């Protein structure tokens, strides 16, 4: 194929300015989780006592702690994005490192929770509630890990080779996208923790 002859390469950046595509992903992902939440509540309707009793086996304190951790990490990422927009890339990187450090605590708490449950024999086979518990928190955890990797890559800053202006602009686009993704991870935990830890409490 001689595509290079028939189509002169478009100049970088001429693609029509469009929605940061991450918003589309966020809308799709939130929709999926929304369906998940409704299915959870529908399943719960047939077994209210079981679901509430199982929910009480979870530590609402740890759920609340994890919410605070993600909110704080999210704030640091939002701050990093603002710093980047102002041109202070170094500060953005430092804030991202802080966000990662705080965010790592979520992973630690979640791992402890899983370990504690599994060592007491509470698995997906235990009952319907715990199928949802592991599915919802598990899928959220995968999102969290992807987010942490993304933040880690962003914390290394713009690439050091190539034209500076272009690599900065490219980096800032990714910083914005990565920030939005991380906020989504935080936002989803708000509903997940409410459903699993708080609704059936007491």
């Amino acid at each position, binding site marked *: 194929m001689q595509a290079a002859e028939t189509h002169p390469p478009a100049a970088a950046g001429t693609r029509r300015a469009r*929605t940061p595509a991450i918003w589309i992903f966020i809308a799709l992902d939130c929709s999926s989780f929304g369906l998940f939440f409704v299915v959870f509540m529908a399943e719960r309707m047939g077994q209210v006592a079981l679901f509430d009793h199982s929910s009480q086996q979870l530590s609402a304190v740890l759920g*609340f702690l994890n919410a605070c951790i993600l*909110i704080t990490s*999210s704030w640091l990422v*939002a*701050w990093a994005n603002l710093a980047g927009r102002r041109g202070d890339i170094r500060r953005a990187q430092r804030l991202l490192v802080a966000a990662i450090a705080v965010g790592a605590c979520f992973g630690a708490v979640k791992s402890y929770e899983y370990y504690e449950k599994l060592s007491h024999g509470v698995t997906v086979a235990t009952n319907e509630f715990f199928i949802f518990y592991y599915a919802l928190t598990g899928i959220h955890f995968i999102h969290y890990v992807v987010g942490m990797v993304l933040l880690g890559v962003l914390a290394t800053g713009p690439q050091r080779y190539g034209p500076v202006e272009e690599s900065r602009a490219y980096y800032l686009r990714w910083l914005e996208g990565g*920030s939005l993704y991380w906020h989504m991870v935080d936002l989803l935990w*708000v509903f997940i923790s*409410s459903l699993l830890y708080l609704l059936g409490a007491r």
Partner: protein
Amino acid sequence: MIGDDALGPRNAWLLLLLISAISFGAAELVAARHLAVATIMGVAAAKIAIILLRFMEIDRAPTGIRRYLYGWTFGCAALILGLWCVSAG
């Protein structure tokens, strides 16, 4: 030092922590379950709206996305609360 534009997210963070504590308190301490669950879901919707507005700056996103995500937030909260009330009898 925090620049002026960073105060918005900082204040949002403090508010989020505060209302999270209220939600936790309602779940653990309020005997009237209908009130507790309404508080939990109300706070959840408010938290997400704050995250969308102050952290994600959703007012910069296209109108369709903005409406959809706000609709999703309050719709899910309402649906969850509604289904809880139905199952509570």
